[in-house]
């Protein structure tokens, strides 16, 4: 990035959120934004600072603690001409409004035979690593992936926050946008000017011919660290950042597996029915004879996340466990 006159600035993942929202609100007056403490306070993660001042209280609305009402408002507005962005503060809170997500928003276009379109985005802070305990640390992108009718996006870099958020807002269908909360303070280069990405395209973050690691969000930098460690031992891995679970870029994953013959998925999800299971099952169905070793899944064990730092660090997939996973895949 950069080069040929494009101005590039370093920016946090956190600040990229407000930048992405502002880009779209500037462009399209039908984009509105609502959630708890998102306006005057700029969000509990300070990811939406400045939007209220810039766009005013009609387009940036603070709500009561009423997640069902928030998503209902977004849904009803989306079906009548607006393009809402709703914030669910922590992804754990999807559990109090899952009906709106899974039963209403996801199914309405289908049930109405295409009569109702729901161009809306639900942003949420996902994942662990910040010692918030079991009810504020879950990675639930697999919950959303399991529900037909939702698109599911999870950026790992500040640039992707802007580009994928723009793509999500412009998409004619509902997109669940997972911001990994452990990434908020991380920094990355973001070019100036409008950025619009494409949903459903994975990014190859590193190329190696010995094994393929597929990761998402906070697990991407961790997989890249593991790749460094492995390179020190002469093992060269490809690291694929899925960026989007639905649509899923099966082609990129499959092509890499054909090249390397070994697949490791790295999920923050607890083990059972995490997205890695789906990726593994696709490869086991479509590329079985290209595999030269077992498909290894590195996940959080099938437990809620403990609060204590020592325990949480032991639960989440670590660089060491990823390295170990790759070695097991090479057996």
């Amino acid at each position, binding site marked *: 990035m950069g080069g040929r006159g494009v101005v590039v600035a370093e920016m946090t993942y956190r600040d990229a959120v407000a930048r992405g929202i502002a880009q779209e609100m500037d462009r399209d007056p039908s984009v509105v934004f609502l959630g708890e403490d998102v306006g005057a306070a700029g969000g509990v993660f300070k990811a939406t600072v400045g939007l209220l001042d810039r766009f005013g209280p009609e387009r940036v609305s603070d709500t009561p603690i009423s*997640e*069902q009402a928030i998503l*209902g408002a977004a849904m*009803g507005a989306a079906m009548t001409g607006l393009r809402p962005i709703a914030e669910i503060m922590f992804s754990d809170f999807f559990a109090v409004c899952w009906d709106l997500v899974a*039963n*209403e928003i996801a199914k309405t276009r289908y049930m109405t035979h295409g009569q109702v379109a729901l161009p809306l985005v639900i942003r949420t802070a996902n994942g662990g690593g910040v010692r918030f305990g079991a009810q504020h640390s879950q990675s639930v992108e697999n919950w959303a992936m399991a529900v037909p009718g939702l698109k599911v996006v999870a950026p790992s870099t500040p640039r992707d926050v802007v580009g994928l958020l723009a793509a999500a807002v412009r998409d004619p269908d509902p997109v669940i946008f997972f911001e990994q909360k452990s990434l908020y303070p991380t920094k990355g280069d973001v070019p100036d000017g409008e950025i619009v990405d494409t949903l459903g395209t994975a990014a190859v973050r590193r190329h190696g011919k010995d094994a393929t690691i597929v990761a998402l969000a906070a697990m991407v930098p961790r997989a890249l660290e593991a790749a460094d460690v492995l390179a020190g031992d002469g093992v060269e891995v490809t690291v694929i950042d899925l960026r989007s679970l639905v649509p899923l870029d099966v082609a990129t994953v499959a092509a890499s597996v054909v090249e390397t013959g070994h697949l490791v998925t790295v999920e923050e999800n607890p083990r059972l029915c995490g997205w890695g299971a789906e990726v593994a099952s696709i490869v086991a169905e479509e590329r079985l004879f290209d595999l030269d070793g077992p498909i290894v899944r590195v996940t959080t064990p099938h437990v809620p996340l403990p609060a204590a730092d020592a325990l949480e660090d032991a639960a989440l997939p670590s660089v060491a466990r990823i390295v170990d996973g790759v070695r097991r895949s090479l057996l």
Partner: protein
Amino acid sequence: MTELRDRQPAGDAIGPAAPALEVRMAIYKMMVQMRDFEKRAYDLFLQGLVKGTSHLGLGQEAVAAGFAAAMLPSDYTFATYRGHNHTLARGAPMAAVMAELMGRRAGLMAGKGGSMHLTSVEHRMMGSYAIVGAHLTIANGAAWSSKLRRAGEVAVCFFGDGTTNIGAFHEALNLAAVWKLPVVFVCENNRWMEYTPISSVTAVGHPAADRARAYGLDPVLVDGNDADQTYGAARVAIERARSGGGPALIEAETYRHGGHSRADPGKYRPDEEVEAWLARDPIPRYRTRLLGVGVDEAVLVRIEEEAQTAVDAAAREAEASPPPDLSLVEADLWADGGSSWRR
């Protein structure tokens, strides 16, 4: 239990006492059509032609008709699985509704939604929702959008007494009040959730009206079996909402003649209760009133005959329609048509 007397329109709270004659005639026609339509739907259910399930609004027609008559074409309806009447009231074609109940290609949603999800965006019937409570929050969204777009559209949202005990009801009412949304919430209190009397599971006597103050709203209670009252209450609430006065919560007391769904005969209800309410059937009652104000009976008979003819035609048309094309299984998940979750 509330007394079963005819309530008198109580001044302002439920608006002008008597609707204009052409409104009344339209209301009567609508009610008769709904009634005939649903009776036919029930027959077809018993014949196995209407599949799955079906929730009839038989007996509750005066709510759907009174409100629809007070709405502008640009206003939005949100209803429940008990939504046939509300869908017809907004003008959706009978044949398409019937075909939907029968799972046919000519269905309102080509059979993809079924009876519990009738939707006709063209008629601003924004959906029938089958999970209790959710659509109150969605109606808010349409009202919010109307407000932001300065569109002057009002959302009218129908639901049952049982719905007042679920969380979404509470969240929706509070947000509507705080944001002063142009939305009118209409609780059709038919005294029963599925098979459980509402009084046995609710902390207050009037599940909606007795809770209005919790949202800073005035309680409004109307005789839901009197179409003039529902129309009057609708006019007042809708106009206030349209002019920026915020939401309303109206409880319309009514009764379903049949069971909760499918072939349920509703036998769990005390005979006297059923009889008392059948005696207050909104349709004969309205007929008598129309005759009383001088409408020629022949005009009413013509309306009644035309309704039968229309229902016959609709049922025939629906039955003649083939099953939906199987390609629809994977269509319309997303705007790009496919259900493709992969690139």
